[in-house]
C-alpha cells in the first residue's frame, strides 16, 4: 500500500442513537403517520437505516392545524426577543450535537463526513444563530416599521443538503414570527427527525415546528393545503412550476429555489492553481448534487488545453468511497433514480459527440456511485450543456472574449449562480454586472453564509434565502402610515388564507412552558 492510499480512517457510528422507526413530529410529539411507511437506506451500502412514516391527507391536516393553533395562541403573542432566545437555544444544541448530526447526515445522504462535519452542520448552527438575532430587530428588515408575519408556512426541501435546507427554511420563518410545517425529502428524513428531538430539548412551544415525512404526494398535499399562508420550496424546476401553477390565485406567498446550470468562467489571467481548485469544488463538491454547481466550465480558448490537462491531473487525488471515511472526497449518489438519471445524461453526452473522460476510481460493489467525469468538445447546443445533470459531470466549453463568455453564460433558462476567475478587478466587476445570476462568485465557488442572500433569476426560481433579504419571504409590511391619508385606505385584507397577524410588539406573559417530553422519536 502506498502512502497515498491512506489507511482507513472511519468515523464511528457509535455516536448515533437511532430508532428502528420514526413517526411524524406534530404538535411537539412524535405520532404515527397513517400513510404507508417506507424504508430509508444508506446509499453507500443499500442497507436499511430506519422505517419512516408517510403523512397522508389527514396527517397533513392535523399538522397544519397544530401550526395554526400554535401561531394564534402562542407564537404570535411572544415577543421577538423570546422567539430569538428559542432560536439561540436551537443553534447551541446543534453545536452540541454537531458530530452526531454530521454522522447521521452522511449515513442517510451519502455525502462525505468531511463535508457534513466541516460545511453542512456548522452552517446549520450559523443559520440559526444569525436569524435568532433578527427576531427582535424586524423593524430594520427593510419592510418598514413593525412588519407582520404571514402565519403558517409550508416548506418542502430537497435531499442534497437535508439539514442545511431545513435550517434555511425554519430559521428565518420562526425569526419572523411564522409557524412551520416542513416536509423533508423522502430519501433523507433522518436529520430532520433528529432535529425534532433537538426542538424538544430546546422546549420550543408545541406546534411551532411540525415535520411531516413522506414523498411527493405528501409535499403536494402540504403546499396545496388551504390554511397555509406561505409556501417555500427548494427542489426541481419541474415541481417548482407545478407549485407556481397550483397556488396561483390562492393569495399564498411563494418562494422557489430551483435548478441551475451555472457557468464557471475562467479567463486567461486567472490565478491558475486556485481556478483549478474552484472548478473541482464547483462541480464535484457534494457529488455535484448542488443546484448552484459550476456544471459548465467556460474556459478562455487560449488556455483551454492547459486547464483541462491540469484538471485531469488534479482529479487523480480525489478519493471516492465510504462516506464515513474521513478521507473520502466523493461520496455516494443519493439514490438509484438519481444515478440512473446521471448515467442516462452522460451517455447522451457521448452520443451528442462530446468527448468523455472519467477519473480512475475503484467503485464499491454495493451502493450508488459515479466517478467524476469531464466532457470536452461540448457545444452550447448539446443537451449536456443545457440540462441539469445534478451529478459529478462537468461540461467544458470555450470562449474568446469577455462578451462572448457573458453571452454563453446567460444563454440558459436558468440563472442561479456563476463563477468568474481572473486577477483583474475591473473585469470581474464588469462581468458580474452583466451575468443574469442571483449569486456570483469571483475567485471562489460554493461559498455560503447566513448573512449572504442566495437565490436565482429566471427558471432557477424567485426569492432569496439568507441575509436581511431572506426575511422578506416571511414578512409583509404593515404599511407606511402617512398622517395625511390615514383612514383613507386599509392595508389589511380579510381574504381567507391570509394571515391577520398580531403586532409583534404585544408583550404578554411568556409562552406557557410545555410539559417535558421524551426526546426520542418513538411512535405512539
Amino acid at each position: 500500500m502506498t502512502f497515498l492510499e491512506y489507511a482507513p480512517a472511519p468515523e464511528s457510528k457509535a455516536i448515533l442513537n437511532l430508532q428502528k422507526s420514526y413517526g411524524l413530529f406534530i404538535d411537539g410529539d412524535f405520532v404515527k403517520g397513517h400513510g404507508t411507511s417506507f424504508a430509508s437506506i444508506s446509499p453507500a451500502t443499500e442497507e436499511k437505516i430506519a422505517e419512516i412514516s408517510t403523512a397522508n391527507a389527514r396527517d397533513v391536516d392535523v399538522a397544519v392545524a397544530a401550526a395554526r393553533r400554535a401561531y394564534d395562541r402562542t407564537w404570535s403573542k411572544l415577543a421577538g426577543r423570546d422567539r430569538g432566545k428559542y432560536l439561540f437555544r436551537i443553534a447551541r444544541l446543534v453545536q452540541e450535537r454537531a458530530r452526531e448530526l454530521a454522522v447521521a447526515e452522511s449515513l442517510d445522504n451519502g455525502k462525505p463526513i468531511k463535508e457534513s462535519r466541516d460545511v453542512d452542520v456548522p452552517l446549520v448552527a450559523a443559520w440559526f444563530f444569525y436569524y435568532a438575532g433578527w427576531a427582535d430587530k424586524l423593524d430594520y428588515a427593510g419592510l418598514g416599521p413593525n412588519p407582520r408575519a404571514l402565519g403558517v408556512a409550508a416548506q418542502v426541501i430537497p435531499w442534497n443538503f437535508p439539514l442545511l435546507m431545513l435550517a434555511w427554511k425554519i430559521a428565518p420563518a420562526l425569526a419572523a414570527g411564522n409557524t412551520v410545517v416542513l416536509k423533508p425529502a423522502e430519501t433523507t428524513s433522518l436529520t430532520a427527525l433528529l432535529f425534532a428531538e433537538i426542538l424538544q430539548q430546546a422546549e420550543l412551544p408545541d406546534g411551532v415546528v411540525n415535520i411531516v415525512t413522506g414523498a411527493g404526494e405528501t409535499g403536494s398535499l402540504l403546499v396545496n393545503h388551504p390554511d397555509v399562508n406561505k409556501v417555500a420550496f427548494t427542489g426541481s424546476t419541474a415541481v417548482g412550476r407545478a407549485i407556481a401553477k397550483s397556488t396561483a390565485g390562492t393569495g399564498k406567498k411563494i418562494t422557489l429555489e430551483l435548478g441551475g446550470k451555472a457557468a464557471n468562467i475562467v479567463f486567461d489571467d486567472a490565478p491558475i492553481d486556485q481556478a483549478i481548485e474552484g472548478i473541482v469544488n464547483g462541480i464535484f463538491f457534494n457529488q455535484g448534487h448542488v443546484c448552484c454547481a459550476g456544471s459548465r466550465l467556460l474556459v478562455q480558448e487560449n488556455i483551454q488545453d492547459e486547464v483541462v490537462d491540469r484538471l485531469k491531473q488534479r482529479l487523480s487525488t480525489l478519493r471516492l468511497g465510504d462516506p464515513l471515511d474521513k478521507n473520502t472526497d466523493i461520496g455516494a449518489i443519493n439514490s438509484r433514480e438519481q444515478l440512473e438519471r446521471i448515467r442516462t445524461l452522460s451517455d447522451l453526452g457521448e452520443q451528442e459527440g462530446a468527448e468523455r473522460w472519467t477519473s480512475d476510481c475503484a467503485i464499491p460493489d454495493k451502493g450508488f456511485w459515479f466517478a467524476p467525469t469531464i466532457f470536452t468538445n461540448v457545444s452550447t447546443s448539446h443537451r449536456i450543456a443545457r440540462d441539469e445533470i445534478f451529478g459529478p459531470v462537468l461540461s467544458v466549453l470555450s470562449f474568446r472574449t469577455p462578451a462572448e463568455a457573458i453571452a454563453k453564460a446567460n444563454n440558459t433558462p436558468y440563472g442561479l449562480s456563476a463563477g468568474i476567475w481572473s486577477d483583474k478587478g475591473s473585469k470581474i466587476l464588469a462581468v458580474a454586472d452583466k451575468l443574469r445570476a442571483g449569486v456570483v462568485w469571483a475567485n471562489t465557488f460554493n461559498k455560503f453564509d447566513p448573512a449572504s442572500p442566495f437565490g436565482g433569476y429566471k427558471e432557477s426560481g424567485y426569492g432569496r434565502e439568507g441575509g436581511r433579504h431572506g426575511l422578506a419571504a416571511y414578512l409583509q409590511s404593515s404599511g407606511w402610515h402617512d398622517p395625511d391619508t390615514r383612514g383613507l385606505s386599509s392595508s389589511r385584507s380579510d381574504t381567507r388564507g391570509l394571515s391577520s397577524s398580531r403586532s409583534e410588539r404585544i408583550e404578554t406573559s411568556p409562552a406557557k412552558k410545555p410539559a417535558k417530553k421524551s426526546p426520542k422519536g418513538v411512535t405512539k
Partner: protein
Amino acid sequence: MTLTQPVTLAPAERAVQLIGGDLTEKSLRLHLEGLSGVDAVGLEARAADLGTRSIKTTSKAWALDKVISLIDLTTLEGADTPGKVSSLVAKAMTPDPSDPSTPRVAAVCVYGDMVPYAVEALGAAHSPSGIQIAAVATAFPSGRASVAVKLADVRDAVVAGADEIDMVIDRGAFLSGRYGEVFDQIVAVKEACRRDDGSYAHLKVILETGELNTYDNVRRASWLAILAGGDFIKTSTGKVSPAATLPVTLLMLQVVRDWYRLTGERIGVKPAGGIRTSKDAIKYLVTVAETVGEEWLDPHLFRFGASSLLNDVLLQRQKITTGHYSGPDYVTID
C-alpha cells in the same frame, strides 16, 4: 529619453533554455512577471483542506518514520560550540536510544564554521548514503554582506566537508526589483559549491518567504531560484516569523510540479522553522504527495528544517509501540 543597456546575466543553463540566449535582467523580469498570480484565499483554503486528511494506523506509523528520515536536524545559534554540535550529531545518529528500529535523520544543519566538528562527530556515518552535513552560508540569516564575503563563506564550508549548502537570497535586492542581482548571486554561489574533483555540493536556496511577504513574490522567487541553478528551494531561515507555513510550502510545491511537467527535472523543497508537531509534519507529507506525488517523499527531494520536531515524532512513535502516551523524560535532549 535614454534606454539603458540591458544587463546581461550569468548564463545559467536552465534560464538559457527557458528564456533564450539573450538572457538579461529584463527578459528575466518579463518572464517572472508573466507567471500566473496567486489568490491567497484560495491557496490557504486548499492548504487547510489538505490538512484535514486523517492519517491513521499503518499510514501514521509509516508517516512518522518517513518524517524522521526527512529531517535536517538543526542547530543555528550564536552560542553553538563543538560540544553542542557533537551532541546534535549523536542524536541524529541515534534519535531514540530505547528503540534501535528508529530511522536516522537525513542530515544535520549547522553554521559553516561548525562543519569540521560535525564531520568529526559523524565519523563513518558521514557518507553519501548516510547522514549528510548541510551548512548555512552567505552571511546567514540576513544575507547582508558583500558578495565576496558571502562566496568565501560558502567556499569555507565546502572545503570543510559540507555536502549541502543552504544559502539565503538577497531579499533587499529582490524587493527593490533587482532580480538580475539576485539571480547572479545564486549562480555565483552554485559555482562556489564546486569541489576540486568537479562534483558540487547540493545547493538549497532560502527564499525567506516571511520577508517576501506576498505569495506572488514567493512564486517569482521560486522560479528565479530554479532558473539560477538551485537544487532545492527552501522557505525560511527560521530566524524570521512567519517561517514555514503549509500554504507557502504548497505554493512552492506547485512551482516544482510545474517545472517538472515543463522540463522533466525534479527540484527539492524544504520547509524550515515553525514545524514542531508530528501532526503538522504529516500535513506536509500529505501536501507533498497530493501535489507533486509520492516520489518526492525522499531525502533527495524533500526535507524538514527542524529541531524540536524530532522529539515530538519520537513521542508519537513510542505511543504506537507501547500503547500509552509518553513524556519528555523518555526522549533525549540534544
